[in-house]
């Protein structure tokens, strides 16, 4: 499972961070950064929520 961030779309709302602060963090540059290279499969549900709730459709999930 891999998360993709479309940086043309991300504007740093941080809804993803508010759902999973161990996986996502909006930095001082106003963009989200992925904090973990590999994604534990048991976090799939919350990652799917982060993808669905992104206001700018900037997140997608592979695998």
């Amino acid at each position, binding site marked *: 499972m891999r998360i993709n961030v479309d940086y043309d779309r991300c*504007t*740093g*709302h*941080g*809804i993803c*961070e*508010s759902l999973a*602060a161990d996986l996502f*963090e*909006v*930095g*001082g*540059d*106003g963009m989200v950064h992925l904090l973990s290279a590999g994604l534990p499969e048991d976090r799939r549900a919350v990652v799917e929520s982060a993808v*669905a*709730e992104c*206001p700018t*459709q900037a997140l997608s999930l592979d695998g």
Partner: protein
Amino acid sequence: MTDTGSGLVVVGASLAGLRAAEGARRAGYQAPITLIGAEPHLPYDRPPLSKDFLTAAGPPTATLLREEAVLRDELALTLRLGTTATALDVAAQIVVTDSGEVSYDRLIVATGAAPRTLPGTDRLSGVHALRTIDDAHAIRAAIDGGARTVVVGAGFIGSEIAASAKKRGSEVTVVEALATPLARAVGEELGLALAALHERHGTRLRVGVGVERLEANGVGAVTGVRLADGSRIDADLVVVGIGVAPATGWLAGSGIELGNGIECDENLATSAPNVWAAGDLVSWPNATTGLRMRLEHWTIAAEQGGAAGRNAADPDAATPFTTVPYFWSDQYDKRIQFVGVAEAADETTTVIGDLDSDSFLVLYRRGDRLIGALGLEQRGTVMKFRHLLAANAGWDEAMSFAKERAAAAAAKAAAAR
């Protein structure tokens, strides 16, 4: 519940309605789902309409919430677009529309809200609210035609439209009847601080003066705005942003309990059997804040839609919908973000930046608890307070966390010099 095969019907094909259909499918709902929408368009995202849609250099396009193939194939939705629901029979479980009746086993009401208008202005040309993509096209065309623009209402949408019109080269004045814009959303002091964005970026702002009437020429085109103090502002375009009202007119007489919108329980169920609701028209008890709330935020519509869809798909496993409210506004290339609630705050404290600048963070206290956080250009910080709010954090904890953030930001800035 007796399922007849009619399946789930969702009335309202915007964000909340679409998310309701998605939520039901994700929860394993297999029966037919019909999505009824009054506009002829595929579900699209509304926030860009007052921002990028108005300022885009090239021809503006709608931001679709999902591609049509996803709606029809992956979600297996029956789309009834350009169809307006006109009445509801909760005993027979029928939605009456302007093009026939639609039976349901389960129903989600997500018809949103409609802009309030200025009395007596329906027939004037050059006067618009902004809710739909058709409204946005009309406003953009008027701005491009060189219109002198008056925005009535200094709320978030009016302010965004003013900022966009200004960016596109229009001469803009914002008129607000209240002495303090945005007081209900962010409190009086911060309402003034945010309203100051207009003047810092060259937009005139008149507060504490109401609109007496709109003036028009012989062919019914608006020419100016007459204010209550007798003054007049020339205008070729008047955009009215004085709030919205829940679109519940079609539910009158249905027996569904209405009040401030639709009165729902904690699971977003209405007072009628097998009927749930989501979005701008929902009033529900939010356990996270301890308040019965009706909010017109994008995030609430999205989250409630998903929750109502899940609960409708599996009512026996229904769970309460709770959230820390979040909204944002983009004006003059600055982002305003708010988490929590501002109502009944005992104190607000600026913890980063200054209120007279374009970058600050303010915390809201009630009793010994943190209840809200407001950031202007604080994208890396605001959401960290959503965690604290969800955990019902104490004020002292929030303040020490804020001081750590401020110190870290200062150290980083010093290192960069």
